[in-house]
């Protein structure tokens, strides 16, 4: 080492530091897709292990609502709205409400430390969990939509559109649920926000929009689940307007990307305090 005091020379700190041994090589970073797949698989297995009973509750709830509404509406656009709303309600229940609770509890219980001390991209953790919760909704949504079509005499022809509605509204609502769960300062808040989000999806999605006051309709338009409901409801028409269906799904997709980005940011923020 030089005898000249290090802080006399410009850039000396760098030179002096250079005399120390090189920093050790870092371990590998987990890449996005493999780690996303690993998180997704682990989360999916929780359904089997934990037998999340609420998955069934979600379906029963939606089926029950449709049976109740059967006495009130007698077909036409209102019946379409009820069936579509009940089907998407399953997505809201699981992807928004349960995921918000899960992340809220994970954050409060120190579970995020596990992921934060692994070299995994934050997006992999958030997308893996969101994807798994969106997948949990598939059986319930399909059963609800199928049962509703039979109950109200709607055509089953275009139910294939669920293949787009579930992932896109699932992304939007799971992103929202993850963000709420990770941003809530306490787990009770996360539970509360998740419940409120689901109640909003229930009231604003299932009840026919035509009967709502103007102010409530604005709130309805702000809720991402609405666009999933609209897209599905349109396909029950005798001649669906596919451009509008695509438009609604596009809104779900955009909200999904944005809310998942916010959730990823919230995860990063929650992981290092």
């Amino acid at each position, binding site marked *: 080492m030089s005898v000249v005091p290090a802080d006399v020379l410009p850039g000396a700190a760098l030179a002096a530091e250079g*005399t120390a041994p090189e920093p*050790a090589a*870092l371990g590998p*970073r*987990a890449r996005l897709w493999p780690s996303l797949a690993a998180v997704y698989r682990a989360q999916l*297995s929780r359904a089997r*292990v934990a037998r999340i009973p609420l998955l069934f509750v979600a379906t029963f709830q939606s089926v029950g609502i449709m049976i109740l509404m059967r006495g009130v509406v007698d077909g036409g656009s209102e019946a379409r709205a009820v069936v579509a709303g009940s089907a998407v309600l399953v997505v809201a229940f699981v992807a928004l409400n349960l995921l918000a609770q899960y992340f809220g509890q994970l954050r409060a219980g120190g*579970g995020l430390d596990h*992921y934060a001390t692994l070299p995994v991209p934050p997006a992999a953790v958030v997308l893996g969990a969101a994807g798994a919760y969106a997948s949990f909704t598939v059986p319930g949504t399909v059963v609800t939509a199928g049962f509703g079509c039979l109950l109200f005499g709607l055509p089953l022809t275009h139910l294939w559109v669920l293949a787009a509605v579930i992932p896109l509204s699932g992304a939007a609502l799971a992103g929202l649920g993850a963000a709420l769960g990770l941003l809530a300062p306490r787990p009770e808040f996360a539970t509360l926000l998740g419940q409120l989000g689901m109640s909003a999806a229930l009231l604003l999605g299932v009840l026919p929009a035509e009967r709502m006051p103007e102010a409530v309709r604005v709130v309805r338009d702000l809720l991402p689940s609405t666009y999933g409901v609209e897209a599905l409801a349109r396909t029950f028409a005798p001649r669906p307007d596919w451009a509008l269906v695509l438009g609604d799904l596009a809104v779900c997709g955009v909200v999904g990307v944005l809310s998942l980005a916010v959730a990823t940011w919230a995860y990063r923020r929650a992981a*290092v305090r």
Partner: protein
Amino acid sequence: MSTRAVQAFRHDGDTVCVVRGLTKTYPAVRGRRGVPATPEVRATDDVALDVRRGEIFGLLGPNGAGKSTLVRQLTGLMRPDRGSVRILGHDIVRHPERAARILAYLGQESTALDELTVSLAVETTARLRGLDAKRACAERDDVLDELGLTPLAGRPLRKLSGGQRRLACFAASLVGERPLLVLDEPTVGMDPIARRAVWSAVDRRRAEQGATVLLVTHNVIEAETVLDRVAVLDRGRVIACDSPSGLKEQVAGEVRVDLVWRETAPLHVPEVAALQDRAVESGRRWTLRLGPEEARAVVATVTGGAAFAALDDFTLTTPTLEDVYLALGGAVRQGLVKA
């Protein structure tokens, strides 16, 4: 950066972790209904440490001494207010995300893994530590076998006993080789067989990979048997740092006498009454720290004569790290565990 700081940062290749001036203060919390106010707490106070390659370095202190807060700052989970952390030449304060690629951390919570099976918990952790699918499975099988967890591989963590769950989390921290293992009370709730599995797994990694271990514990017996060096923490400060035997030499002149009375101490015996001021009383137990001569005299007094009738049990022991902690001025009388 000053010259002194640069020199402090220079690691000679044998120091794995260099900590200087690490300070973290939790802000005061105003009281709410049902929740009392808490004043500002300095959780770590100007902490300096050097952990050498290949050693098991311990952080010992009672609950609330700041051990976990310190470890969270070393693992990049918490940003310190001041101070520096260098692990294998990497600045962890500036680049907390690098910690995950240098060290494996076993925290106190298992929430993230609770609903997974043991096998999937370990495999997923291996994948997230950057291993490809084939290696993750191979390492999973090896570590489950090594720790005797293979029979439990298909059971979810939350269905296991506390000690088994801890062992499964420990298994997850071992996959994907890391030069530094940071273990926060790894053996809590474990039976002796599981503990032995943990320490032999740790020893194997030290011998074969030159791994370094930073261990948080409040168990003095464990600290004395497994640690190469130990930093004793009290209210966020390091009050001593040496090998366990080196620390015990500081109180070598003392012997610890524990007297357990049948019901109450026989204070009508003058020799016993004279000891009362110097004894730490906890229920029927009196603990005394005395010079060897004096200890002998006390034992002679209580095992003969009038006091003996009131005596249930007595022990005479050489000092432990707990005595060191108390002799150094450790404030908390309870909280260290001997088991």
